[in-house]
Each structure stands twice: as structure tokens, then as C-alpha cells.
């Protein structure tokens, strides 16, 4: 099984130079640590920044500079600051090319649920609904199964949906899968030590397996 950092490390391999990218809270935020330094990308924070830098040192902390998770951050050289309306204009306008976010469930047609669990306190969707409705490429970081072993890659989401037919790729703790436009999870890679049979057993939605499925490698 992949650790959270390994999921982030694997997702980072999907990043291409020249992209503007929005990273969600949690594992997606860790992706920034694994983007190769020679790739020129710009990280967007939906509260109004293009060009998120590393976390600050104690001396650099500025309460007027935070990310969407309300963490203190720094800016890289060449950053730009703007309002929330401008920020979501660039998101809805399709200018942010890649969105990486977490999910509680994904369906085989690419629906995503990640904002609400009935019976639990609802905190809100934040910017997730705008992001998933807008980006051309959406990659999800998630656990393949719930703690009690139920698949989270489903025929249909059981939880309230955040967006429809939007997820393009999933990196779970067990596998990398494409979500095909015609529906279905296409298995691309398996986590070290995880068999195809285990992935079949733990995927409720339609799973497509063609040929040998390579094992992921980590340095």
C-alpha cells in the first residue's frame, strides 16, 4: 500500500512543465514537495495567489499570506495576487489546467463526492465544486477502501456529489487508474506488493484490465 507521501509522489509524475495547478487540502498539498525542480509550474491558491512558495521560516511568517487551507505560506518570484472573484474567474475560465484534490468516493463515470457525509456536521464545499466543474484535468488522491473495507471506487456515488463526470485519473493507496470517458476504471499501475486480484476485489465499479499491469517503482 502507498503511504500518503507516496500517493503524492506518484501524482507528481503527472505534472507537466508550463502548467497552472490547483492543489487541494491534504495529500494534494504534499504533491508540491515532489514536483521536479526543473519543471516550471505555477501553483494557484484559490484565496488569491498564483505562485505558492514553500512554508515560511519563523522570521518570514506573514498573517496576510496564507493558502486555501489557511496555512502560512511564502510567494515565489513572479507571483501575482488577486481577489477571490478573479481567482475563480481563472478557474471557471479554464486557465487553471490541472486540479488535484481528495475524494471520499468516485464513480465509474467520473462523478466525485468529497464534501458532505449525511448525519455529520457539514463544513461546506469551499472551492471544490467550482474547481471540479471547470478544470480540464482532474486527478484524485484517495484511499481505495474505507476503514471498514468498503470500496470507494463505485458504480455510483452513495454520498452527496461534488461534481459530475469530471475525474480523469485516480491515484489510490493501491493503484493508478484512468476514468474512461465512456465509463469504467482502467487499471494502469499497482502499488508495490499489491496484486491485480486484490484490486479487483476492492473495486466495486467497472474495472478494465488489459495486459500486464506494472508495479509502481519509488526511489
Amino acid at each position, binding site marked *: 500500500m502507498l503511504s500518503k507521501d507516496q500517493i503524492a509522489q506518484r501524482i507528481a509524475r503527472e505534472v507537466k512543465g508550463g502548467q497552472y495547478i490547483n492543489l487541494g487540502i491534504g495529500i494534494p498539498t504534499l504533491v508540491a514537495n515532489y514536483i521536479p525542480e526543473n519543471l516550471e509550474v505555477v501553483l494557484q*491558491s*484559490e*484565496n*488569491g*495567489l498564483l505562485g505558492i512558495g*514553500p*512554508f*515560511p*521560516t*519563523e522570521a518570514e*511568517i*506573514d*498573517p*496576510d*499570506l*496564507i*493558502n486555501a*487551507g*489557511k*496555512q*502560512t*505560506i511564502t510567494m515565489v518570484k513572479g507571483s501575482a*495576487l*488577486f*481577489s*477571490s*472573484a478573479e*481567482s*475563480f*474567474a481563472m*478557474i*471557471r475560465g479554464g486557465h487553471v489546467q490541472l486540479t488535484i484534490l481528495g475524494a471520499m468516493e468516485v464513480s465509474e463515470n467520473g*462523478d466525485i463526492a468529497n464534501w458532505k457525509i449525511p448525519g455529520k*456536521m*457539514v*463544513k*461546506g*464545499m*469551499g*472551492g*471544490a*465544486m*467550482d474547481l471540479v*466543474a*471547470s478544470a480540464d484535468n482532474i486527478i484524485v488522491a484517495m484511499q481505495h477502501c474505507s476503514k471498514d473495507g468498503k470500496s470507494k471506487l463505485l458504480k455510483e456515488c452513495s454520498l*452527496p*456529489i*461534488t*461534481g*459530475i463526470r469530471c475525474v480523469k485519473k485516480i491515484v489510490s493507496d493501491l493503484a493508478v487508474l484512468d476514468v474512461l470517458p465512456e465509463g469504467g476504471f482502467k487499471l494502469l499501475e499497482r502499488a508495490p506488493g499489491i496484486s491485480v486480484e486484490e484490486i479487483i476485489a476492492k473495486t466495486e465499479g467497472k474495472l478494465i484490465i488489459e495486459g500486464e499491469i506494472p508495479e509502481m517503482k519509488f526511489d
Partner: protein
Amino acid sequence: MINKTVANAAEAVKDVFSDAVLMFGGFGLSGLPENSIAALLEKDLNGLTCISNNAGVDDFGIGLMLKKRMVKKMISSYVGENAEFERQLLSGELEVELIPQGTLAERVRAGGAGIPAFFTPAGVGTEVAEGKEIREFDGKLYLMERWLRADFSFVKAWKGDTSGNLIFKGTARNFNPMMAAAGKITIAEVEELVPAGELDPNQIHTPGIYVQRIFQGVNYEKRIEQRTIRKS
């Protein structure tokens, strides 16, 4: 130039009334109109509708207004950091409308810009779309959202001048510029108030036309929610 200066927060909020619709700039606790909130807490108000991306934390920001039971309804995108909020919501004392963050920003922008409704893809196929008009444009589905406007908007800027021109700093800008435009009466508090003419017109983020009252804030706490530092 028209002088918009008032002496302090208490004077700025003097005519805020119960059951009013209020907007508050800020994302989390960053860019929050701290002085205006403190002055509102001194008033005997209730039944307020508060439009703000977040609802503060238990002991800071709008969370303090919730604690005093001044708020009837919150319109926000994310409210996860506040236990008193949760308690009032679950007990039915507080009404809450959760809105996708980009839709919230655009509804406020539309309110200030005189656009009564617009179409957005955010929320199509979700419970946010329930009861809303859905239309297809160029092969994609969008839902209609209405503008938001307020009786009073409270914004916080880094610098301002006596005619109400504002400059923000860092990510503390967030919802402040749109909310300034969407308020019938907009009250701006600034860390540094200067005479009109001292700010470079090229650098103004919010033109003074949107601001009715401006004052020099005091004792900014600028609390940090998630103090995160790099290990080095």
C-alpha cells in the same frame, strides 16, 4: 475629493440595525475587518444575516457574533473551524446557506456590478442545483445564480486614503473588493489611513466610489489559524 473619514469603528457602525444583511471580507481570519466586528459586538443587535466566506473561529471574528446570538443566518462556503457554529446549527438556532466559493465570490461581484443573475458550471448535478434554472450553452450545462447585496459591507485594507481608495496586501484581499462594491453602505478599516493624493492612483485596488466610510484601525491582532513553518 469627498472626505469619507469617520473617527473610529464605533462611529462607523452607529446605524447598523437588527435584521440587517451584512457582508464581511476575509478568508479565514486573513483580511478580516477586526475593528468593525469588535464595534458591532458592543451593540445590541440580533437577527443579522452575515455573508462571509467563513464563520470565524470560536473566540475570534464572526465566531464572537455567533456566541452573542446576533446572527440569524450565515451565507458561507466553508464553516469548519467553529464549534459554537456547529452547536447552533445542529440545535436549529442558526440557519446556514452553503455556497460554492467561486459562486459566492461571483454572486457578490454581480451584486456590486448590477448583474442580477449569471450562469455557472459549479454545482451542476449536485444538491446546490436543486430548484435552480439549468441551461445548456455550447454543449455544457450551467445553473443560474442570483446576485448578493448587503445593507452594510465591512472590509479591511492595508492602506486607504480619506476619499476611500483602498490597497490590499497579500492574500488578505480575497473577498474584500467585491464586498466593498456590493454594500449599500461600505465601511472600510485600514492599517494606514493617508490624505487623498498620497496613494498612487495606478496602485488602487478598490476605487473610493464603493466606500462610504473609512477609518484608521487600531490594535490589529491578525490572528493566524494554521501557523505552518518549514523545517530547515
